[in-house]
């Protein structure tokens, strides 16, 4: 999937991997999301941008039902994965999260586990027997572009790595479950520029194999890595279009003001 495919307009939105429909979310009485309807194209990178507190993190946390982990939260509306409602009563959020992986703002490898065990954590947590665990570890680490750096120190604690490596370890940990969608919540916000560049490179490589949704406050990053971009403001979806369009010729004034750095 290269840029020329995307040039064909509307095509990629026709059979979205995930889709939200009038999604509303609350923290207690505070409304964090207001009627978000958004389609996430399959095998592409979707960036979500917007000023702090605009609901972008809340939105992706709704996509794998992590929003409800926090007590006192509530949602309304629908989210579909392959046109199946993930908030349907027959859906087990635990199974959903295997299909929709997540990477967090700050790298959070499990401190009591080695690098290898961190990669296998998801599989083991689900009680899966892994006869070919070496293979799984290598594959996930290779995909997360970390294998060369850690192949000789797999037994070391995950925390012994640098921040950027830790974040790629967390990506490997998510990839080991073979998810279909990978959600990234500001994955570079705690990293230095060099480590950030590595993660961005990695996102490029994941494109075409996974459907990636990345939340970022860094507009250059959104422009560099994503195919489509959604701009959120005060809990509302202002504009959603091809990344090029958003950054060069946005439809709305608000979007233009934000991407040109006039506020935010």
């Amino acid at each position, binding site marked *: 999937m290269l840029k020329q495919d995307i040039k064909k307009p509307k095509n990629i939105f026709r059979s979205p991997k995930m889709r939200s429909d009038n999604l509303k979310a609350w923290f207690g009485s505070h409304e964090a999301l207001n009627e978000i309807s958004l389609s996430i194209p399959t095998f592409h990178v979707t960036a979500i941008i917007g000023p702090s507190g605009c609901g972008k993190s809340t939105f992706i946390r709704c996509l794998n039902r992590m929003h409800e982990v926090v007590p006192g939260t509530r949602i309304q509306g629908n989210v579909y994965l392959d046109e199946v409602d993930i908030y349907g009563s027959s859906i087990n959020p635990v199974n959903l999260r295997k299909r929709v*992986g997540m990477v*967090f703002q700050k790298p959070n490898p499990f401190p009591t586990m080695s690098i290898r065990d961190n990669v296998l954590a998801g599989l083991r947590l689900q009680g899966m027997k892994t006869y070919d665990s070496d293979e799984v570890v290598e594959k996930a680490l290779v995909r997360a572009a970390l294998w060369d750096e850690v192949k000789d120190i797999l037994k070391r604690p995950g925390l012994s790595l640098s921040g950027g490596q830790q974040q790629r370890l967390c990506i490997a940990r998510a990839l080991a479950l073979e998810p279909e969608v990978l959600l990234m919540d500001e994955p570079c916000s705690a990293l230095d520029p060099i480590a950030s560049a590595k993660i961005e490179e990695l996102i490029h490589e994941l494109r075409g194999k996974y459907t990636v949704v990345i939340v970022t406050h860094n507009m250059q990053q959104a422009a560099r890595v994503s195919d489509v971009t959604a701009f959120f403001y005060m809990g509302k979806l202002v504009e959603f279009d091809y990344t090029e369009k958003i950054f060069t010729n946005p439809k709305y004034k608000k979007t233009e003001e934000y991407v040109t750095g006039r506020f935010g």
Partner: protein
Amino acid sequence: MIFKKKFIKESTSENAFKAICFVAILLPILLIIVLIGDALIDGWSRLNLDFLLGLPSRKAEIAGLLPALMGSFYLMLLTAAIAIPLGLGAAIYLEEYASESFLTSLIEINISNLAGVPSIIYGLLGLEIFVRMSHMGRSLLAGACTLALLLLPMVIMVSRESLRVVPKSLREACFALGADRFQTIWKVVLPMSFPGALTGIILSMARAIGETAPLITIGALTYVAFLPDSIHSAFTAMPIQIFNWISRPQKDFHINAAAGIIVLLLVMLILNALAIWLRARLQRKVYW
């Protein structure tokens, strides 16, 4: 603190006050040294293997500590077996499951109030509930149940603190990998918080080993010339034996009491050292 000493000229009265404060803090510490020294001087002559391995006797010179030593040992094991699961479980409920509700805050207030109830009241509770109503009799089991309830608030508090050390982000990472709440607790939260919890629990056990009043109240015997052979047998414990020797009018028994005190302090010292050692060791490496 904020002002370096040199910026504020200290007057004589200030220096005098500082000295008084220093004496005030030194005094109790000196007293402790005197206390331990006093017990050592009094009891040293009786401290030998015969004393540790002997049975109590009406003659002070041949009376031994063994039934009390074993009693305390079994009591600790049983108490730990009851208090640790209950305390950890309660802590897990309060930290991981409970939402902000009336019931939760009731439990929390209740726990902090229980921590202030005098230990002898727990003895009365044990006497009525375990010894009488549950027909456990004046047994090791009844003693352990009573001590476990007494320890529970402390075990819950240290366990909660150790659970709080685990950052929220790790729980979220675990959820995001498709783990359910129990797996998250069992595989990620507990392994991380275990060293801290264990240290705190051992320290509270060290506290419990010196508890006397509740055990006397439930009717632990002060003169036991046999070793407990099951959880239903009658028992004595080190502090009770020491109390028994202290309350004898003959001065010879006071020597035994002093020797018993040295042993009790040693056991507590060992438990404390164990806690510190375990913490250092477990924190270094905990893998699955």
